[in-house]
């Protein structure tokens, strides 16, 4: 029997031949005793091996076996973390920077409005009259007098760079 025939017989056993070739080999084994004997030997060997793999167990405890794997994995991790670190740091700064930017924009929008009407205190008190001390004679002023309480409140409209009239703000006059 040639090597080619032997390998063809084996391919037949392993189901690797096309159907037409398989039929030919089957017919051949039925009329050739040597081919039939070899086929039987191959079949017996294959069956014996296939169902006979040893059931082996790792000769180490679960914890010990895992510990080496874990160590090796942890050795790999710092590399990945180093790559990820700059992106992570940048992301950390995103919120504070964003919040600061929003605060700045809001402050810029609010400053002119605050300067339009600025309460300024008036601090001179006499028994009968209220004296307003100011170097901005043309400023608009709003006065509120509470007779019952004997208190007067005066609100001045002043420029942003106006000097405070007095050290007390806002003030009440009794």
């Amino acid at each position, binding site marked *: 029997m040639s090597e080619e025939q032997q390998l063809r017989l084996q*391919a037949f056993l392993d189901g690797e031949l096309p159907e037409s070739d398989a039929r030919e080999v089957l017919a051949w084994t039925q009329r050739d005793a040597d081919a039939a004997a070899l086929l039987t030997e191959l079949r017996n060997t294959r069956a014996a091996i296939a169902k006979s793999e040893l*059931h082996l167990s*790792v000769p180490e405890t*679960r914890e010990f076996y895992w510990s080496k794997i874990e160590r090796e994995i942890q050795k790999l991790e710092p590399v990945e973390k180093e790559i990820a670190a700059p992106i992570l740091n940048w992301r950390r700064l995103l919120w504070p920077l964003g919040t600061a930017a929003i605060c700045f924009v809001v402050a810029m929008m609010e400053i002119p409005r605050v300067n339009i009407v600025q309460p300024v205190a008036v601090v001179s008190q006499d028994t009968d009259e209220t004296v307003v001390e100011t170097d901005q004679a043309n400023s608009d002023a709003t006065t509120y007098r509470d007779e019952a309480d004997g208190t007067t409140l005066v609100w001045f409209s002043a420029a942003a760079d106006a000097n405070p009239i007095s050290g007390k703000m806002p003030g009440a006059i009794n």
Partner: protein
Amino acid sequence: MSGKDFTNAKDDALVKAARRGNMQAFEELVARHRDKIFARAFSMMRNEDDAVDLSQEAWVKGWQRLKQFQGESSFATWMTRIVINLCLDQLRRQKRHRTESIEGMDEESGGVERQMPVVTVNPTERLERGELRKKIDGAMGKLSEEHRTVLVLHEFEEMEYKEIAKTVDCSIGTVMSRLFYARRKMAALLVDLRKEK
């Protein structure tokens, strides 16, 4: 998912958790399949220390490549392919460092086995399962690495010729030839073992 739940979780769920970086989930996968992966490494290397080292290396590779696991096969099968490839790499390295024996050359060409008479009786008949396993294992240990590898991949991993050729990086003809001589040698070894008994 807490650590307690991992013992009841399916492999798919554990793989998903491990992909997100959960080491506990991966540890559970290792615990479940470590014997199978070790056994495959041992069947190829025939050395316990090598099998332990290579199986552990396979788990580390598995962790690194988890994102590549698409679920076409089971997780255990996927891991088995990784350990097989590592064993093949190791066997190639070992082969480069040693001179081929005369026996190895004979096995590669099939010179001895081609002339062997056909074994007419079933040498494993009437053997107990445990005894049979030991005999098969002993006979496998006497094969050359090339023949054993092809036999393991075909009989234990149930790979087709084409898949074996791709895994081992050789032609289908070489796979067929190696498988044939491996089987013939196994038949002869099993007869010898029976006689020894």
